[in-house]
């Protein structure tokens, strides 16, 4: 079985983003970029399934600018076998990305697609569900545990009140939540080796996918700030303030 893992290049999770002065977007020039953290978890899960003998080949794919190649190399250094860059300089939305991924799935015929549950830039949390819809496949979102058994995948999901386990018919879509695993670091020899692994370049048109945005961004602004309040000296003063000043007790 092949496993397909889509990965996204995003602003590094440790960077505090700033809004451009003209309010058009977030400043991305000269900002450190990295693989979306949830996608690292997805890559790791695929690698573990391969190591457990459940999969033969891990293909990583990224839809984005030329520099997304670096993100693919990171995934190859972690242990993925080959990569596909679907190059576009267009600002992509989850629906467009899902359409490209459907094309990749049709071409590669994986038995499983594992994605991060959301990207930490647009926080949309849509692509996996949309891809499942377009393919007519089952979806196991927000996974904290995945067990493959023949043509079934048992997925434990993080839900609002706790955990829910569902059984999916394969082929299926799984989206990774934080606690699914702890992704590995790529070792130096593997980083060197990754440079020689195959990386194909394609375009959205190669997959017949329309990635034109449907949403128009009218404005990007800083959130309304919260001012620091006062420091109180004691528990008694705190309780007094909460009762008599804030009126919340």
């Amino acid at each position, binding site marked *: 079985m092949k496993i397909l893992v889509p990965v996204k290049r995003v602003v590094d999770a440790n960077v505090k983003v700033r809004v451009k002065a003209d309010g058009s977007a*977030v400043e991305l020039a000269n900002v450190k970029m990295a693989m979306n953290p949830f996608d690292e978890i997805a890559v790791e899960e695929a690698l573990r399934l391969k190591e457990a003998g459940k999969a033969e080949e891990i293909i990583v794919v990224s839809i984005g600018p030329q520099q997304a190649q670096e993100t693919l190399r990171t995934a190859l250094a972690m242990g993925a076998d080959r990569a596909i860059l679907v190059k576009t300089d267009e600002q992509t939305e989850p629906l467009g990305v899902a359409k490209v991924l459907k094309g990749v799935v049709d071409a590669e015929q994986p038995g499983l697609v594992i994605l991060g549950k959301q990207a930490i830039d647009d926080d949309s949390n849509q692509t996996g*569900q949309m891809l499942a819809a377009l393919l007519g496949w089952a979806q196991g979102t*927000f996974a904290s545990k995945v067990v493959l058994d023949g043509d079934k995948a048992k997925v434990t999901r993080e839900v609002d009140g*706790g955990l*829910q386990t569902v059984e999916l018919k394969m082929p299926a879509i799984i989206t990774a939540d*934080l606690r699914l695993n702890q992704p590995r670091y790529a070792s130096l020899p593997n980083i060197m080796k990754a440079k020689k692994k195959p990386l194909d370049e394609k375009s959205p048109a190669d997959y017949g996918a329309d990635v034109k*945005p449907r949403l*128009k961004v009218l*404005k990007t602004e800083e959130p309304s700030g919260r001012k620091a309040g006062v420091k109180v000296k004691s528990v008694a003063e705190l309780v007094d303030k909460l009762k008599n000043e*804030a009126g919340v007790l």
Partner: protein
Amino acid sequence: MTILLIAEHDNASLSDQTAKALSAALQIGSDVHVLVAGKGAKGAADAAAKLKGVTKVLLAEADELAERLAEPTAALVVSLAGAYDTIIAPATSSGKNVAPRVAALLDVAQVSEIIEVVSPDTFKRPIYAGNAIQTVQSSDAKKVITVRTASFQAAPEGGSAAVETVKAAANPGLSTFVENKLSDTDRPELTSAKIIISGGRALGSAEKFQEVILPVADKLGAAVGASRAAVDAGYAPNDWQVGQTGKVVAPDLYIAVGISGAIQHLAGMKDSKVIVAINKDEEAPIFQVADYGLVGDLFVILPELQKAL
């Protein structure tokens, strides 16, 4: 302009997240139908019919809808979608699971986790863990939207809509429900609690977390939350997590105990009405958003607080 609101419920009762999403829906249009998809869900449907502003409740019942599996629930919504301009759901784990599947089946973009309705086609939503707010306009004829419920007041009761039974769509038969392991608790739910007390890594262990945080929570009738650091360290279960990747809350009072205030955590609680921070490090970023800060040892302060309440 008729709107279909997908209800959040547990069959027997309706979650107040539905009432909050209803407030957002009513800012988009005045004719709102609520879809209760479930099994033995008459209780939830009757509760939805009582919400002010609801003009009709659709009740669809089937075995595969009992736990609102994504594939049959999305198929049901799509089968009803023809009559609606906007389909809206609270951004709960169930809403986030189902809505994008509906959007893709209808070939429309989804607008996730709106915090403000600017006009019926234009919305504000947070990006980058709430570090920026985007105003987006949808060009799709049909709109699929999820609502960050912490940003909207619950719509009050006072309605008397009719409950109409609709047929479930054919089950795609792609997935089956195995089991739920839900936290068994008498405490209020995080997303609807008026008071929340959250613990961070400074608690040091699961035992200390229980020993120090829970008695104060009990005294206040508060829900219990945790930072991602505390969850990652195993001090608290994941469904207590408040933040970008956990729950987003906006209670009247939020008490952050031993939480430094990472961006990811602030994203989940900074819209709370009153924030209290208790931390021994007076430089901790949490104090920059706190209305009341108390610098000191939480293991001394919390027992004192418990007595003072």
